[in-house]
């Protein structure tokens, strides 16, 4: 089966980290994550909720993917983003048809006859 069909696999390292943080473990340091495809530095490891808050993003309006797995809204607080992780934050934008390159013309031009054929127009002027 293709890679994307895999279900969420719990990352034990991350759960351990979460426990450490809850128990007042080591203070966060600067970590580099990939945020929407770009490198991004943040005080971390951080929860998804904290990351969204630091970006001034209303968590009710977005969906978040953490290392290619969608994070349920209920798990924003408990999902921890650490060094090297990939995060995608998406929202809804206007759409219906992709902009794509559909605007560029096709190679075979579309025949578009004039509403009044030129033969008729010519005939009328001769008679007139």
């Amino acid at each position, binding site marked *: 089966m293709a890679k994307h069909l895999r279900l969420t696999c719990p990352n034990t390292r991350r759960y351990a980290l979460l426990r450490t943080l809850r128990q007042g473990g080591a203070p966060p340091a600067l970590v580099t994550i990939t*945020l929407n495809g770009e490198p991004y530095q943040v005080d971390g490891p951080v929860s998804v909720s904290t990351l969204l808050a630091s970006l001034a993003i209303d968590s009710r309006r977005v969906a978040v993917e953490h290392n290619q797995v969608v994070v349920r809204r209920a798990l924003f607080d408990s999902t921890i983003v650490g060094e090297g992780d990939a995060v995608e934050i998406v929202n809804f934008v206007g759409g219906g048809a992709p*902009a794509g390159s559909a605007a560029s013309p096709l190679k075979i031009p579309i025949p578009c006859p004039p509403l009044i054929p030129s033969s008729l127009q010519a005939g009328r002027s001769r008679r007139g």
Partner: protein
Amino acid sequence: MPTPDPLVIAGRTFTSRLIVGSGKYSSFAVMAQAHEAAGAEMVTVAVRRVNIHDRSKESLLDYIDTNRRVILPNTAACFTAEEAIRTARLGREAGLSNWVKLEVIGDEKTLFPDNEALLEATRVLVKEDFVVLPYVIDDPVLCRKLEDAGAAAVMPLGAPIGSGLGIQNANNLRIIKEHARVPVIVDAGVGTASDAAVAMELGADAVLMNTAIAGATDPIAMARAMRLAVEAGRLAFLAGRIPRKMYATASSPLEGLVGR
């Protein structure tokens, strides 16, 4: 009083048979007015990365009355089944609805769908309890396969997306409708009101459009025109048109003419 003639998709009832997009409008305010004029009960939206650097932009959702209109996230511009599946999952999480307008594009220039990938993505998403509305080529065989895969409707194109060419494939659409056990929604190709009416007269259950409204000189007026055209086309379909004939058939009695 007209007979109630609701559109039912996956058990959900709609009064309006005109589904609209939310792209290419000059402003969100114009879009909201166009949606109102269209009487739309379903609006399709795209799923895209949040702009991390500029948070000042208004949110599209502030301009869609979600109490009256169903949000239909789409996977527009996805070129693989994997991309489309990821986008659908994110759309579900952002919108808290399991409906998706599934697009897997196979060609940049025509924006025609990738049939194989579309079928694969449909199968995966149906298993994940999505209500899948696939944008599909006007192929009755593929439409049947999508239906067998669990699609809640099929959405064949009338012409390439954004082309405004009108219904180029009336016979295929008619055959698709004849065989389909799920609603058939003509998605893409409409240029003006008469095109929407033609689609409905062919028996389509609904029409989905974006550019024809958003790109019109007066989108709000065009939205109203489309609403009327979809209603007129539906009524004409239900009323049953007369057969086409080669020659004239007199409408007035031939007897009792003066001077004969």
